[in-house]
């Protein structure tokens, strides 16, 4: 069961309409290393985790990623909601506009729709945790590229928060991997 909280995990403020920035940030909504992929990856892997710590970590990080998805959506929504059509065209978002107007949709920065092939659920907890650690690093890199591309200090502030969370998630997955290794060694020798 999930409940919804009528608040963001971290404040979102934008300096003004900026469809150029929205076009790249949307990749963290529906792209290969984005928050939808992260959330669904962890929430679907948790069922076959062998130890209680791992079940909790995947449930909790998977849930936090949903909150990050909402932050990214709020950024994109506010960056395009008052953008004039002329600016949308200049930013190269006219293709997106043709399919979605100013609505939110799961695409990467070049417009390709989200696909389940972005994620894996292998059943081997060691394999899955390595995938998750790699995923957190890929998301961290993406946020760094987005910060480089950002010309809006308020947006950059939110992107820096999201980047920092990927670092923390990587750390927690690494600890979980060690705990799983310990568990498997115990099973082997006793």
């Amino acid at each position, binding site marked *: 069961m999930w*409940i*919804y*909280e*009528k*608040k*963001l*995990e*971290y*404040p*979102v*403020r934008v300096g003004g309409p900026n469809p150029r920035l929205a076009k790249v940030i949307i990749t963290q909504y529906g792209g290969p290393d984005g928050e939808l992929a992260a959330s669904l990856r962890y929430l679907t892997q948790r069922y076959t985790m062998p130890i209680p*710590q791992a079940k*909790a*970590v995947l449930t*909790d*990080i998977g849930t*936090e990623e949903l909150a990050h998805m*909402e932050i990214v*959506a*709020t950024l994109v*929504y*506010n960056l395009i909601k008052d953008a004039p059509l002329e600016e949308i065209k200049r930013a190269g978002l006219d293709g997106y506009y043709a399919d979605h107007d100013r609505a939110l949709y799961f695409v990467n920065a070049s417009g390709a729709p989200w696909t389940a092939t972005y994620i894996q659920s292998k059943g081997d907890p060691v394999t899955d945790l390595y995938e998750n650690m790699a995923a957190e690093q890929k998301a961290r890199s993406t946020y760094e590229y987005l910060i480089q591309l950002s010309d809006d200090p308020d947006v950059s502030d939110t992107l820096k928060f999201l980047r920092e969370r990927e670092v*923390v*998630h990587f750390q*927690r997955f690494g*600890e*979980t991997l060690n*705990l799983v290794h310990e568990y498997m060694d115990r099973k082997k020798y006793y």
Partner: protein
Amino acid sequence: MDSKRLNLLKKIMALEFTCVDFNLYLDTHPEDYRALAEYNAASEALAATKKEYEALYGPLTNYGHSPSPQAWRWIEEPWPWETTF
């Protein structure tokens, strides 16, 4: 959203973020009782601040987790993506 409401909301966001971060840490360090005490302190402060906010501005959570005395205020705007910080 007036500044009094916004400040209360920001306080809730900060306290809940503290809880999120301690929660993830405790998932892999459940034997760390100092961290557990900090988690419980933040959780208590969060519950009190939410109660204060909800009495003034309506429920923050759905499905029975916050009461809605007198009127059904859940549908009231702004939603999180409409809030100006």
